[in-house]
Every structure is written in C-alpha cells, then in structure tokens.
C-alpha cells in the first residue's frame, strides 16, 4: 500500500511557500495537519506532546522547504520530519527492548481481526504497545509505509522494523483477546 501520492495542487502551493508566501504554507498546513497530528498522537500517546510535535514539525518544514525536492511526496517528507520531531522529543533511543531477530519474509502489515472490535478499543490496544512495536505498527500498519521507509524514518534496521511489527501484531492480538481495558 502506498502511503500517499503527490497531489498536484500541492506543487503550486509548495512553490509559493518556498518563495516566502505564508498563506500558501497555511493551506498546506490545513490540508496535512490532520494526518500529521494523527501520526504524532499515536506515536506520543499524549495530546499536548503531539500538538507540540505538530507545531515543531511544520515550523521545521517551513525552514526546510528550500531543500524539499519537488519530485518527492510532500506528505511523506512532512511525515518524516514529524517522526524525527517525535524521536527528538523522546531524547535518545527507546529504552524498550528491541528484538534482534528478523522474522525474515515480508509480512503483510495490514492486520485483519477475526471479530470486529470497537475503534476505541483498538486505539487503546495500540496505545498500550511498547514504543518500538507501536512505532512500527503505526507507520507500516496504519500509515502504509513499507518497512524500508519506516525503518529509515525511525533510524532502525529494516530487520528490526519487521521484527517490531511482528511483535506488535502478536501483542495486539493477545491484548484484544483478553480485552485491553
């Protein structure tokens, strides 16, 4: 699954924003803020921290716009900045245990449940996951990034990303079966 595609009308806005047009950048912000916030909220599990990360990410994006390559996806670029911002806020690598074993073959990141659960229950189960597993699940399972891209955003090896996702799926299934709340 591709996370997003380049939206053509973004290109004109990006060009205007690059030239210093704050209004154009505001339109980009309005268009992308929901997704960036969703990503930050799921990674930080804290609405205030997520809001701070969103603000920082957009400010960094504004400053880095001259370096943005028009051929790339703006939203992927923005997400990368947002993930970096969240990681910086955590001050250093996760203290959660990181599995070293690589499950090998590529796993389909989308997880289908046998029985439907309430959206809120699933969000709570994701929130309860250890940091590393949650990051991999959010980026690969929810936002559709491939392991390579997610691993690069998180600054981890592809194998570690796969292992974290594998672990996340196992824990999620287990927690949903016994009821998270």
């Amino acid at each position, binding site marked *: 699954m591709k996370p997003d595609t380049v939206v053509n009308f973004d290109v004109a806005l990006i060009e205007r924003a690059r030239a210093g047009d*704050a209004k154009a950048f505001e339109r980009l912000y309005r268009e992308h803020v*929901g997704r960036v916030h969703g990503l930050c909220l799921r990674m930080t599990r804290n609405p205030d921290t*997520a*809001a701070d990360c969103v*603000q920082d990410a957009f400010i960094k994006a*504004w400053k880095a716009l001259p370096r943005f390559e028009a051929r790339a996806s703006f939203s992927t670029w923005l997400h990368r900045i947002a993930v970096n911002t969240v990681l910086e806020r955590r001050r250093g690598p996760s203290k959660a245990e990181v599995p070293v074993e690589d499950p090998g073959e590529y796993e389909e990141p*989308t*997880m289908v449940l046998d029985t439907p659960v*309430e959206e809120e229950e699933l969000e709570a189960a994701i929130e309860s996951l250890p940091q590393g597993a949650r990051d991999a699940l959010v980026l690969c399972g929810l*936002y559709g990034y491939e392991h390579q891209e997610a691993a690069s955003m998180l600054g981890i090896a592809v194998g570690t990303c796969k292992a974290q996702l594998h672990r996340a799926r196992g824990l999620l299934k287990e927690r949903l079966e016994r009821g998270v709340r």
Partner: protein
Amino acid sequence: MTTRRVKGIGELPRDIPPSRDLWPAIAEAIQADLAMKAVPGTGRRVGWWPAVGLAASVALVAVGVFIGKNFKPDEAPPRLVNTLTPASDAGMVKASLRQIEYEKQRDQLWNEVQAKLATMSPAEREKVGKSLATLKQSIQEIKDALGHDPANALLQELFVSTSQEEMRVLTTVRDSGRQEL
C-alpha cells in the same frame, strides 16, 4: 472517538485533527523567520536589501560597502543597546533613558531621510522608499513577535541588530549626496 466497529488497523482513521488550531503559533514562528531573513547577514536576503544595493548605482552607496568602509568611529550612528532585559531597577531607568534618546535620534534621522528622498529622482525614491518601508515593517514584525514572547532572547537580539541596521541604512541614505561616488 466514535464507537464504530472495525476489523483491522487499516480501518482506523489516519487523519485526526488537533483539538485546537495550531496555526497561530506556527504563523508567528514563520513571521519571525521571515523577519530574520530580511536582516542582512542572518539568512537569505529578500526585499529591501537587493533594492538598496541597486540604488547604489545611482545615488546611494551600497549599504554593505558603506558599513565596511565609510563609517569612521566618530561618525557612527547612535547605538542601540539591548534595553529589553535590564538587570535591576537602576538598569531599567538607564535603559529607558537610552531607549528614549535612541528613539529621538532615530525619529530625527527619519525626518532627514524624508527630506533627502524628496531630492531624489522618482525611480530612486521609489526603490529606496520601498526598501525603507520593508525594513520598517520587519522591525514592526519583530516588535509584534516580542509582544507575544518578550523573554525570547533570539527575538531580542534580532530586534537590537535590526534596529542598528535601520540606523545604518538611514544614515547611508541621508549622507548619500555627501559621498563621492
């Protein structure tokens, strides 16, 4: 959150709008960034600086050259010191007096510059006038940003350096006829 039932993480919403509008804080940072870029030596030069440089070809000494070569120590424009964070009550009084003196001299300089502008050709007047207006606007934007965040050391420093730059430019314009070009 809703109580919608889902069968997988792929069904969860990717977009989660923040509970409050985060744009005003981002816009403020962008304005500060734009103001900083408008100050020579602090980033990409936009607006007034190239215009002042162009005016050099007719009547105005290029500000960059002027600052480097034409100021003798006894001719230096009145200096503005950082009066924004005085350490004591006595310091506060002294700082206020310095500020009043500075503002008086600056107002006088602006009047002299207005008179000088009247002697310039329409093309020169337009170029120099636009440059000065942009400079004035940059200072106002920094002042506004400081109004929201008075303890911001970066903004304070920016305000002082931009105000000093304003004095240099005004002196340059006022004295332009006296320079041998």
